[in-house]
């Protein structure tokens, strides 16, 4: 088992692509996405209904080393400043296979 950082991000469905572009820019292209999340925060409620993506959130999760996380931390912060959402970081052990 190897210690890693687990990063969880909730953003609007439209904005997910921009998060992934940030990851890819740092060759950090390992992630899992769960679509169709709903929720509330500081901005308008995303109830998950309607035809437009702006009322849907996505949940994105990736595990990486602390160094890797540092490389995307600032761009993610700047993006979320603009788009809203939340980014949570925690310690995990990776069962390496």
């Amino acid at each position: 088992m190897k210690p890693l950082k687990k990063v969880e991000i909730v953003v609007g469905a439209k904005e997910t692509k921009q998060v992934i572009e940030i990851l890819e820019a740092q060759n950090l292209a390992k992630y899992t996405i769960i679509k169709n999340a709903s929720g509330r925060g500081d901005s308008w409620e995303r109830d998950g209904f309607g035809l437009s993506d702006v009322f849907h959130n996505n949940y994105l999760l990736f595990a990486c080393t602390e160094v890797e996380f540092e490389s995307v931390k600032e761009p993610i912060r700047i993006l979320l400043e603009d788009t809203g959402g939340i980014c949570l970081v925690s310690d995990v052990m990776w069962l390496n296979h």
Partner: protein
Amino acid sequence: MDQSLIIDNLLNPTILFFFLGMIVVWIKSDLEIPQPLPRLFSLYLLLAIGFKGGVELAHTGIDLSIMKTLLFAVISSIVIPIYLFFILKKKLDINNAGAIAATYGSVSAVTFVTAVAFLQNLEISYGGHMVAALALMESPSIIIGVFLVRQFDKSESQAAKRIGVRETLKEAFTNGSVVMILGSLIIGILTGEKGAEALAPFTNDIFKGMLCFFLLDMGILAANRVRALKNAGPFLIIFSILVPIIHGVLSILISMALDISEGNALLLAVLISSGSYIAVPAAFRLAVPKANPGLYVPMSLAITFPFNIILGIPFYFYLINQLH
């Protein structure tokens, strides 16, 4: 005004299902049309209406009068966001002013489809090119709205750096609903009569039923979204009803001047008076993330849209009949 028009409209199953949707929310029923079923209905309606329009257009061809109508439609979708922006700027911040202006410059396909069903009930024909008008009117106001915001917003927005002019254009013109309706229209044009007949049970016969289902969902959605306007203040509420009336009436007057037929004039009035809640929020979320979709989407979806399908359509039609 002939009240029977409104009552006839209200007793239409499509409109009744819209009411049922609103009642569902008022009585707090747990009835819901789970995702992504509403997308199925909306994609179906775009495909059906686009395809039928294309088949019709292939039949009639394009003449000067059609070009005139299309030009009028596109110009309206350019002029409206500009004049609305400068009015809205006095009451709201730049970002939301731009978004609302773009919303009402663009169109609502569902309102259009409901008006088509209204015409079908009365057995009044309309031109296939009206579907082209619908497709052409979706994007221009988005470009203009974003441009105006960027012009007047002096803050160094991060989004402006990330999403440039080209991305905005791309986003505006490749929105899913634009592509679906335009694509189906072109396919309808390319397909011959025989191909159209083979598709008719799908695109025509079950059309009304699918619309009922979809309007049931739209009723639920509208009644839910309207809550977001609780704190929006009277200006925006009045705006959401007054603007469609003004645009609808003006559009009808110009249509008369341009000698546009009854059915087409109604559809134009509906297009011009309606507001977008699919293409505009999608593009603005990227290009102007500081605009609040919790504001401009409920305006068009929860006020203008119900107003238009319940009262607007029969009213516009009454007016057209009076002036003809």
